[in-house]
């Protein structure tokens, strides 16, 4: 299942719609890295609201995604981590350190605009 990526000015918004396989998430990482260059994006928002689980593999891929787009010149904000998912991540001891997060899409966009100013 591929993840739709929308463009809003110089921000790319990847809105995950359902549970993803490991491969789907790796594909998203590669697609976003490519699209940051193609669309000269400055920011990326990954909305994980509908993602069922953030296990060790998914967390690693999301972290890699954020670091890859950073190296391509765009800031990534992960939004929509659900309370029970956050709780499981803390139990796992994996907390996406070094990756910006925000409550939802609105807050994520606000954070990117703030950093632009």
């Amino acid at each position: 299942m591929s993840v739709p990526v929308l463009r809003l000015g110089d921000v790319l918004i990847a809105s995950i719609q359902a549970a993803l396989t490991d491969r789907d998430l790796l594909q998203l990482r590669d697609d976003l890295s490519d699209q940051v260059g193609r669309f000269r994006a400055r920011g990326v928002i990954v909305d994980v609201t509908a993602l069922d689980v953030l296990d060790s593999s998914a967390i690693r891929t999301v972290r890699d995604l954020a670091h890859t787009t950073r190296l391509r010149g765009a800031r990534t904000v992960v939004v929509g981590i659900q309370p029970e998912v956050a709780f499981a991540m803390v139990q796992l001891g994996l907390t996406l350190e070094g990756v910006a997060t925000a409550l939802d899409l609105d807050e994520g966009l606000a954070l990117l605009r703030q950093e632009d100013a």
Partner: protein
Amino acid sequence: MTGHLSEPLRACLPVREELDIVLARTCARELARRGGFPDAATEAAATAISEVARNIIVHAGMGEILLEVVKERGRRELVVLACDRGPGIPDLDRAMLDGYSTAGGLGLGLSSARRLMDEFHVVSRVGKGTVVTMKKWAA
């Protein structure tokens, strides 16, 4: 003796490809929901099942996961059995350490699953396979 719920909440799931990891955790979530588990316990169990299912794919290629909600000592538990006939784990103590991996991963699979569950037990025989048994309590 294990008293079963009025409706049997159990499933036996093959694990052969990546998509089966998603199906196993989706099924676990549904069983836990029907068993009246709180959201946090359900999410922890689904995440742990994702880890052990991936371990099956990565290390053994295929295996199966059995899930059942049982009532034990008046408490509801989600019991998970993850079995494979893969190469087995030669050094179980090391495999349970964070960051130890023989497959080039993060090496977090087993230790992550243990952290997320209330009970966790591994039996492994080199050349025969591995059985992970774990439980999540409803409260």
